[in-house]
């Protein structure tokens, strides 16, 4: 099972290395959002921008993530590779987990690259509290990819492909967005992680529930 998951993950990493579709889409889009935020909040006092910074980052990550996730299943549609995946003697759940991990990895890496750029552009420092922030980044991004991988599989089957994913995705990831923003604000303000175990629990519970259930029902999404 683990080997099969790793195979799918490796296949996606290889495809990504050759096409660079998901990563470049997410990275450039997130960067653009960070730049546009600057104009949107031009008249806001600097203090309030700094307070809103974790929120801005998560908004950029969410929307950039949607863009990347849309590609994750659309790419399988081309050259009928979806059919090849379905013919492969692999449990459909393993396909889900492999793709989910791949999506997580691509999203997470582009987020890690956006953070220093954000720090430079907004004179914002992440260094003091980087490790706890990194943990939140992992938990939040895992939630996004857990939901996003299965929903992008649903969305490619509809007539409105690209539009459908954000409509399905955004209301469902509300708990992740709230939890990630809430904990990021506190962590970056110097609060220790011990004080926010409730929020970390919500993020973990969300990740566990959605990964498990998606694993179980993914076969119905992949069906032709």
């Amino acid at each position, binding site marked *: 099972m683990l080997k099969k998951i790793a195979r799918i993950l490796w296949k996606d990493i290889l495809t990504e290395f050759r096409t660079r579709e998901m990563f470049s889409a997410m990275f450039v889009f997130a960067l653009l959002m960070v730049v546009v935020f600057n104009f949107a909040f031009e008249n806001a006092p600097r203090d309030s921008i700094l307070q809103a910074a974790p929120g801005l980052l998560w908004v950029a990550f969410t929307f950039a993530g949607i863009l990347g996730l849309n590609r994750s299943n659309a790419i399988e549609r081309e050259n009928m590779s979806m059919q090849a995946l379905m013919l492969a003697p692999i449990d459909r759940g393993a396909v889900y987990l492999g793709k989910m991990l791949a999506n997580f990895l691509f999203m997470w890496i582009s987020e890690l690259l956006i953070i220093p750029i954000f720090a430079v552009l907004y004179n914002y420092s992440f260094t003091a509290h980087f490790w706890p922030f990194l943990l939140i980044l992992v938990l939040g991004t895992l939630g996004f990819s857990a939901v996003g991988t299965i*929903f992008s599989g649903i969305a490619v089957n509809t007539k409105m492909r690209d539009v459908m994913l954000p*409509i399905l995705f955004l209301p469902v990831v509300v708990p992740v967005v709230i939890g990630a923003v809430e904990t990021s604000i506190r962590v970056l303000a110097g609060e220790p992680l011990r004080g926010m175990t409730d929020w970390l629990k*919500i993020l973990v519970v*969300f990740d566990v529930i959605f990964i498990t259930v998606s694993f179980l029902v993914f076969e119905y999404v992949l069906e032709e």
Partner: protein
Amino acid sequence: MFHKISNLLFFPLILLFPFSLYMVFVYAPEEATMGIIQKIFYYHVSAGWVFMLAFGLVLIGSIGYLVTQRRSWDSFAASSAELGVVFCTISLTTGPLWAKPVWGIWWTWDARLTSTLVEWLIYVAYLMLRAYVPEPTKRANLSAVFGILGALDVPIVYFSIRWWRTQHPAPVMGGGGYLDPQMRVAFFVCLATFTLLYFFLLGLRMKINEAEDEIGSLKRLAGSQA
């Protein structure tokens, strides 16, 4: 089958609706501070209860479909989602109508209001998903998957929003406050009326789905013979 029973609800409903209005406006006393505005509570909370019931049954229908692959379960889930959105919309519109004169604002990002809005968005997404998948089996499978994941999300949404807004006062209504016995009776009449209305409409909607399916297959049959 189900609609034959639910159709019988038509007759009690014809009587119950005027009766519920009588209970609300004549029988139940006027609330001391809010006055006539409080009357909206009877339908508002009843609609709120029905949409929660309806969304809960979407989950049951979705699981039922994935397990049995029977079309009637899919029709059940879809009809319940439609009705849930209608009743949720009633709840979301009567709420601000009450809040404006009492709280002085139409809307506040309070836990219950926000989670209701998010739930509404989830089930609107569910209906949109259905609208954009033309092939019936595929539509049933995909929407069942979304129906299950969306329903699992509802409690998580609720708790996360509650913690997010803990500093805010608890919602005025449904806070376990004391309700005048006469008001309570009027409220339960409305609750029963709305619940029966839901089941009546559910049967009707499922019957329409059945007819649509039949017309679809007849059309295909006619097309293949022509």
